[in-house]
């Protein structure tokens, strides 16, 4: 019955669109579908090397958000690529906040104005199932330019992969780290935080002290807790260490047996408590700060600690944005000595069985929040353009290009390749001191090599799980509208409602597929 209706529904919309066509004037060619009628034959079709291919006359529209971050390197290297292969790269940008809707509207209505996207691989959950993205598994593995094996194992095997197939080409490494002021911690004889309790202790000790010499009291810790910004990621940066212990494939969001949310338990409660305590050692308006604000506060020397993606590294060395050059250290996300026992929902102490990946008895779970900007290719376009789009993305990701780009602050690209850690010279050239570069890269490397990295949620309706249900409950909890238990209940119920609506089995299969469980 329901099926019948849905068919009719689809028919209705389709036919409504037809009315419009009928009303419209003679079909003029869409400006977007700029497929040239005569594509010159490729000289070496099938050859994976970009340089060997001839894409003269092909135009690739790449959609991403308005930079300079991410868009800048694409725009800068587009002409180089055109000289190399003849393919014209046209970078189209829209405001960051509306990128997802824009891509989705374009593909799902069959407009197909864009041939490639540089986007958040989290969206794969929504995009892969209906077949919007091109499977590039075979291409990447046989591509000598791309050097697939050089990409960090997490990004290669989890971030770019869905159900065992590769759909995106990583251009950026994204995960959370803790940043601290080396000068302040040294002065007060404090060590960088290893657990969240350490973090709170340092924040408490520094709160209210003058940290940048302007005579004003400053803050212990600055974290973006604004609603509908980044607050829903940071809660998992904290909670992750309590929830996930057995490696990436275990997952931190749902129980892989029954798709029950891993929220209504002592681990998540502990994370919420820590999160709320952070409000005490922070700027008074912290619940209205987004990462732009906290980065500004940290680089102007007003915070002792911060929790952020890799961006603070390059921002802290730029004199236009920073007062704390060479005073910033980075470290892997703090961990926990107590972890969740999934059968009882209680916290248990770390030992060899409960925390096989623990370091010094502390379980760390670096969180690959968002997942790093990646390139993907529209599956519904001319294969010739797909080839050109792939060649361009591979060119962007190849070590020759990306190893330079990741050291440039304004590209917004963070390291994701093994070769990017071996050589500190590029980093020193970009303005870091040798020690700072080692420290920064060390923290990234420690996170990247952790087998217990948390893969961000990427199942159908991920945005509803995270941006609506989780975000709203966390915001209400922080603002005091609801208490801890109510927040956990609200998230659990909200997530279960979406899961049941979409079909529990479908969602469970998708969740397992994203974690690579069935491989």
């Amino acid at each position, binding site marked *: 019955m329901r099926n019948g209706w849905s068919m009719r529904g689809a028919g209705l919309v389709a036919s409504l669109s037809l009315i419009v066509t009928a009303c419209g004037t003679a079909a003029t060619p869409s400006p977007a579908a700029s497929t040239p009628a005569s594509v010159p034959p490729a000289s070496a079709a099938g050859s994976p090397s970009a340089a060997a291919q001839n894409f003269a006359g092909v135009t690739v529209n790449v959609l991403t958000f308005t930079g300079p971050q991410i868009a800048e390197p694409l725009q800068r290297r587009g002409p180089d690529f055109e000289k190399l292969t003849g393919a014209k790269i046209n970078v189209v940008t*829209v405001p960051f906040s509306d990128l997802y809707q824009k891509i989705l*509207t374009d593909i799902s209505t069959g407009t197909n*104005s864009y041939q490639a996207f540089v986007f958040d691989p989290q969206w794969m959950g929504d995009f892969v199932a209906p077949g919007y993205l091109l499977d590039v598994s075979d291409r990447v593995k046989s591509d000598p330019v791309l050097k697939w094996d050089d990409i960090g194992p997490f990004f290669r095997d989890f971030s770019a992969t869905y159900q065992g197939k590769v759909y995106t080409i990583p251009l950026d490494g994204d995960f959370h780290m803790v940043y601290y002021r080396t000068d302040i911690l040294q002065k007060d004889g404090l060590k960088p935080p290893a657990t969240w309790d350490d973090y709170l202790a340092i924040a408490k000790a520094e709160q209210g002290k003058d940290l940048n010499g302007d005579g004003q009291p400053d803050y212990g810790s600055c974290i973006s807790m604004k609603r509908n910004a980044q607050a829903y990621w940071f809660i998992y940066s904290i909670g992750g260490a309590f929830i996930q212990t057995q490696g990436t494939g275990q997952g931190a969001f749902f129980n892989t047996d029954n798709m029950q949310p891993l929220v209504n338990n002592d681990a998540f409660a502990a994370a919420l408590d820590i999160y709320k305590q952070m409000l005490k050692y922070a700027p008074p308006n912290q619940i209205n700060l987004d990462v*732009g604000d906290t980065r500004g506060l940290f680089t102007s020397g007003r915070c002792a600690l911060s929790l952020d993606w890799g961006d603070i590294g390059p921002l802290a060395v730029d004199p236009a944005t920073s007062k704390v050059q060479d005073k910033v250290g980075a470290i892997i996300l703090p961990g926990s000595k107590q972890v969740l026992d999934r059968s009882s929902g209680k916290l248990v102490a770390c030992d060899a069985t409960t925390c096989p990946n623990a370091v010094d008895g502390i379980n760390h779970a670096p969180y690959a929040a968002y997942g790093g900007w990646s390139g993907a290719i529209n599956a519904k376009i001319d294969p010739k353009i797909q080839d050109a789009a792939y060649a361009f993305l591979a060119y962007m990701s190849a070590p020759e290009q990306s190893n330079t780009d990741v050291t440039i602050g304004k590209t917004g690209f963070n390291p994701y390749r093994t070769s990017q850690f071996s050589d500190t010279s590029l980093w020193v050239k970009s303005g870091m001191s040798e020690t700072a570069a080692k420290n920064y890269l060390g923290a990234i490397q420690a996170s990247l090599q952790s087998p217990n990295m948390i893969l961000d949620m990427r199942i159908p309706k991920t945005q509803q799980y995270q941006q609506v249900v989780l975000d709203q409950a966390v915001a209400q909890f922080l603002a005091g509208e609801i208490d801890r238990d109510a927040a956990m209940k609200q998230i659990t119920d909200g997530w279960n409602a979406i899961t049941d609506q979409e079909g529990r089995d479908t969602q469970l299969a998708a969740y397992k597929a994203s974690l690579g469980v069935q491989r």
Partner: protein
Amino acid sequence: MSLRRKAVAYALLIGWTIVVLFPIYWLAITSLKQPIQVDSGPVYVPFLDFKPTLDAWKYILVDLQNDTLRPYVNTVVVGVVSATVALALGSTAAYALVRFEYRPRIGVVALFIGSLALALVAMALGAPAEIAIGGSLAVFVILVQTIGRRFRRALGNSDVAFWLISQRMLPPVAVVIPIYVLFQRVHLLDTQLALIVTYVATNLPIVVWLMRDYFSTIPIELEESAAVDGASPFRIFRSIVLPVAVPGLVATFLFVLVFAWNEYLLALFLSSANAQTMPLTVAAQNATRGPQWWYMSVLIMIMIVPVIAMTIVLERYISRGLLVGAVKG
């Protein structure tokens, strides 16, 4: 006016001037700051407590030259054209609603809605669009011709006006996807025309409502004497009514111009590479690294300059005397 009253009046005027200008002043000086000067607490006066820089201006106007110019031109074209067209169509409709009487029969309106529903049902059941639309149009015409005359109850001008204004009640998020599909089907996505048509349609109701009130304050004697002299309605409208209604026309024009100039959501969806307008560029300054206040300030500053210029030029038409003089003349 007594001196004391004058002083009070000036105090109020200057007070509100400060309220209006301070935020704009803040934008202006923010555009001259380095990021670090914004982030490390407030500084107020260039040269006195911070060293101004033109970096942000240079970035927007020189480094991004074409990426700034293109949306800028789009904004000007779309804003001015759509406001002009909306004003033209809307003021004639408003005049018609003031001076003529329309009595759309309820039955006919119901028949129209019924035929529309018929077409939709037919298409939902799989009939081709042309046949469904053509067929239900035919049904509509036949029904109107046969039983249409029997309907007595009719709506009036005020109902037509209310229907018009009610078209603004749905929030843009609810209409943007259907409108996107609409323009996709006629292959007008990413063109200035799509934006112009959309803004004309969304701003028309406002023009009609505002102009209706201005027209109804015009003494009818003027039109009557012209009618006696044998002038056609078109002529009366053009050479008598419009000149007298200039203050209202100017106010309304400025108003719809600003609406079209500043609209965000519809512009976001109907444009991609070629037809993007300035509000998108402003909003885009909040990306992964947080709002780039300095760039945003530059963009807002350059965006308001033409509107201010136009306001200065047009303001004098919103001044007294025109109407009174016309009545006497």
